[in-house]
């Protein structure tokens, strides 16, 4: 692998990202899957870096999941999106940052479509006016929240409590970066580093001291694929794609996987248990799986937040091996205590894959 060659490609895909004043919209599902991730994003943005980040309780789904599952026509999704833009305009913002990759792709696709077909944009403006008497400006800048963390990666590194380095051996941790399909595959120019060799997460890993694992199936889908997972008859295709990725990354013995999509960390995490059940195979050390984290969770660990306040106890694959490798201090007995220090109950632990 020629690192300079990748750097050259990265340099060709750089996004203009304003440093402050962002209108933030959450994902439909991330708070259920990884409850502290978005909270961590607002914490880092506002309290650690002192930036202005605005959000409103009036925000709804962007329609992306329904659009990609064929249950909603694109015009409807566009009108929903037009309403989100109206909320941003009313709040006085012009930089729009979604937390969800499919939303990001949905917004990018819609803005591009309006660019190509202005008459459609006019029609959507009319739809929105008829539906709720709102008007909107298009965002001046659209970025995914991982773009912002990427943008601030060195500022985060400067405040790091734990780097992605094993304090006992001094060796950098080997991290797989997995990018959600809707981030840049549709529009490579909209992604940091493009779509073949995305830099958005790799840049964070480098900046925080880790070593990026580049493996043959790095570009492959996590396996979620809305229509593959949501239709039970197709669910075998979903897990097969996940299996393909793990088989491809296995020889590199990664210490962790980080992702920037709502679905990817969920499926890369949960399917490890199902693969273990079905094949008896685990991909971490000593019968464990490979911990899968969102980039906000990883940033939280780097900044020294308590892993249990980051919601890491909700992961299927045990995160403790990663915490040990990073030298993170944690209380094993506090794992299943809530923020109010009361027991939140323990999950039944599987036999096929080691968990705590």
């Amino acid at each position: 692998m020629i690192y300079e060659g990748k750097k050259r490609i990265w340099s060709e895909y750089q996004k203009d990202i304003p440093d402050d004043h962002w209108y933030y919209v959450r994902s439909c599902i991330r708070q259920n899957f990884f409850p502290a991730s978005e909270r961590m994003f607002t914490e880092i943005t506002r309290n650690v870096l002192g930036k202005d980040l605005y959000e409103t309780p009036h925000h709804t789904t962007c329609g992306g999941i329904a659009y990609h599952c064929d249950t909603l026509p694109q015009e409807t999704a566009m009108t929903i999106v037009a309403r989100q833009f109206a909320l941003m305009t009313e709040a006085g913002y012009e930089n729009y940052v979604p937390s969800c990759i499919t939303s990001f792709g949905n917004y990018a696709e819609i803005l591009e479509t309006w660019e190509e077909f202005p008459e459609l944009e006019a029609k959507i403006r009319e739809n929105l006016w008829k539906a709720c008497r709102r008007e909107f400006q298009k965002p001046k800048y659209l970025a995914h929240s991982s773009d912002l963390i990427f943008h601030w990666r060195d500022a985060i590194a400067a405040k790091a409590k734990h780097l992605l380095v094993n304090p006992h051996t001094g060796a950098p941790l080997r991290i797989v970066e997995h990018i959600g399909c809707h981030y840049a595959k549709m529009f490579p120019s909209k992604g940091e580093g493009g779509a073949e060799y995305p830099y958005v997460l790799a840049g964070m890993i480098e900046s925080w001291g880790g070593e990026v694992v580049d493996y043959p199936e790095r570009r492959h889908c996590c396996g979620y694929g809305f229509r593959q997972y949501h239709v039970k008859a197709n669910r075998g295709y979903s897990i097969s794609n996940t299996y393909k990725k793990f088989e491809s990354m296995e020889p590199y013995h990664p210490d962790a996987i980080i992702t920037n999509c709502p679905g990817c960390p969920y499926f890369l995490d949960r399917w490890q248990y199902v693969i273990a059940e079905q094949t008896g195979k685990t991909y971490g050390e000593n019968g464990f799986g490979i911990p899968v984290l969102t980039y906000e969770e990883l940033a939280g660990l780097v900044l020294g937040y308590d892993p249990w306040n980051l919601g890491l106890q909700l992961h299927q694959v045990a995160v403790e091996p990663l915490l040990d490798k990073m030298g993170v201090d944690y209380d094993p007995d506090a794992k299943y205590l809530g923020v109010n220090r009361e027991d939140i109950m323990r999950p039944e632990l599987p036999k096929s894959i080691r968990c705590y």
Partner: protein
Amino acid sequence: MKQNVVIIGGGIAGMEAANQLQLLGYNPIIVEQESALGGHVAQWHKLFPDMSVARDVVGRMSKSIASTNVFLDTRVVSVKSSRSHYTLSLSNGVDVTTRVVLIATGFGLFDARKKEEYGYGVYDRVITNGDLEQWMNGCADSRIPESPRSLGFVHCVGSRDLKAGNNQCSKVCCMTAVKQAIEMKELFPDSELYCFYMDLRLFGKKYEDFYINAQRDFGVHFVRGRVSEVGEDIDGRLCVKAEDTLLGKPLKIHLDLLVLMAGMVCHPQTSKVAEMLRLDVGNDGFFKSRDNLANIQESNQDGVFYAGACTGAKTIPETLAEARAVALRIHSYFNNL
């Protein structure tokens, strides 16, 4: 006094035209930006269909124009045109006045890095057709393993590719791939060779014979399907994906070396030369001929002519035939002044 003809480009088109113009009694002046004559061909090893040694071919041509004025390491900086003359200012400080300018700037090899999915410049074992020719000519190349077990050739890299901005077929790459596959099999008899093609365009004399030899005598595997992506495994071997379109199934294979058949695109200096001489450029980036049937060597400017791959992808015999033809065309131009 002999009439000047300034030839921009000292590749095989420029050299052959110079030779013929000299024989016709003119004073050709070659302006070549590199430090040697011969252009791309001088970099290559053996030439199909007779497997002639490229250096010998270029050497013979150089000898034939030993008395010609040649400016090496020189570019045209600016051009002044009057009603009947062009005055070219060269980067070496010389000004040349001429009635006729012959454009023989040739082509550029497609920059294979643009096809990011193939990882040229990113993976250790991905090279181009041009790199392989230079290696066969004795230039060391650390990307080529000592004893590769499996080698792949990807046809149409940057050719027939709308997205890469080059819609045209580059004509010579299919044959080059077959030739190079045979040469590599001769060097590494225990290796397996795979050519990934969309169509095999083996149109020239003896080309089909090469194809049959490659199949029958060298056991080269031809897979119909374009390589969609390349990855690198932990041992540095390449993981290559394509569809076997004849079977309708995806296919993957590990290879020790992948050779990209980079196509012919317009020479990077085309637009600059076109601007100086106010020449039309086609939407493919090459110089635009008056028409593409009977007036390929005619430009939109009086006294400016074309020869060779500056107007589009061409084989060596086609280029040489054009160079000879343009010499006669220039001769008749002078006679009719």
